[in-house]
């Protein structure tokens, strides 16, 4: 059971793909202009990662090492296309929102990275959990970064939630700062870099703080 706890901890905090592994920076920087954008892409990525890890893990023994990368990419691309087609066919409103983002998941290196480093060496159940938790960790980072940029850039939170979950959610849109004229830098790409830098700095600070008391206060210099 402790293996699963470790997987959860790794995905959400210790090895968080967004602020520790720094994988999947393309969507992290590109789509996090609002909470809803970030969370939607994060959840879609989590699903794809769970599916990809779950699909690769059972066949890992049949794949020779030389061709594992092409096979993994084939599996990931096929799964993403299947999910894309299924959403388009059976959940048209969702496809309108996520449609542009889903094909982007194929080129997201975090999916291939987890397939290669975890699913190719572990049994299906932990592999799927790892994929999902890594995706969830990414979702948190994308949502927080989206929240920061949306708040500073537009003065709102959760704008566009009615598009993702239906018109009933319209009242959920919060105008935190009324009569705000917007701070464009936060919405533009530099805002993504600055916001992400702050998040990484926070993660490092919090991580160091948590480990400090454990370390002996002797002459040993802390390793980087």
């Amino acid at each position: 059971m402790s293996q699963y706890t470790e997987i959860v901890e790794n995905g959400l905090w210790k090895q968080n793909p967004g602020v520790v592994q720094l994988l999947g920076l393309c969507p992290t920087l590109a789509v996090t202009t609002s909470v809803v954008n970030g969370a939607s892409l994060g959840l879609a990525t989590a699903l794809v990662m769970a599916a990809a890890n779950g699909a690769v893990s059972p066949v890992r023994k049949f794949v020779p090492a030389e061709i594992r990368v092409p096979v993994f990419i084939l599996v990931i691309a096929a799964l993403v296309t299947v999910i894309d087609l299924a959403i388009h066919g059976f959940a048209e409103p969702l496809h309108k929102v996520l449609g542009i983002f889903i094909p982007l998941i194929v080129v997201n290196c975090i999916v291939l990275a987890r397939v290669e480093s975890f699913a190719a060496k572990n049994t299906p159940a932990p592999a799927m959990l790892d994929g999902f938790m890594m995706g969830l960790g990414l979702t948190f980072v994308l949502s927080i970064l989206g929240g920061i940029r949306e708040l500073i850039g537009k003065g709102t939170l959760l704008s566009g939630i009615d598009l993702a979950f239906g018109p009933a959610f319209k009242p959920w849109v919060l105008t935190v700062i009324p009569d705000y004229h917007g701070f464009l830098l936060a919405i533009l790409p530099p805002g993504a870099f600055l916001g992400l830098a702050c998040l990484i700095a926070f993660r490092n600070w919090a991580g160091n703080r948590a480990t400090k008391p454990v370390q002996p206060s002797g002459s040993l210099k802390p390793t980087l």
Partner: protein
Amino acid sequence: MWRQLFWRTPCLTSLDSFLKLSMPETIIKHASKTAITLIAFALVFTTLLAYVFNITKAPIEKSEAAARMALFSQIVPSSMHNNDMLKDSINIAPNDLLGNKQTSIANIARIDNAPAAVILEATAHDGYSGDIKLLIAIKYDGKISGVRVLTHKETPGLGDYIDIAKGNWIKLFDGESLTKTSDANWNVKKDNGQFDYMAGATITPRAVVKAVHKALQYFETNKDSLFAEKETS
């Protein structure tokens, strides 16, 4: 010394290991096993894709038609037509003013057989990334009834405010016409025109403004033939 140098050269090292491996039966066995595995995976997943494509084809077409009709009713309100616009259509040959490289479809709105408006498909090729496909509804009197973006590949969260789902920018065109706005003003404000845009994404709205302008010119020059053709269809 030369030998030592060569020994350290990576390409020779790999050549050496290649020679070690080059007993024919080993190589053929290994390569064919690898190739067969790759082919097997490709076959299995191609089959899966073909299967999913087949079962989702009908629902996708259905939902696209429904979405199209919903889009039509956004730009041509039900008070402006009482015919089935999806079926009442003519084909337009490819031309530069509409930017279409293939035959496009124009849907016609009528009230009791009298033409009320036409919905043109137009394509802007000079967007930030890829083509921007537009639906432009022009009333009989030459005024724009509404414009909507059909498909685009503009940057999510940046250039995508041309989409009605992300902003009301596209409604700037409502009620515009060639007579109301002079040719020089058919530009974004950055190019001394009258159309607003969001800083950071100028290329996208510029392309859309141009495309709408050209579509109006197309409508103006082809108005008679459009309406003549409509009467016979």
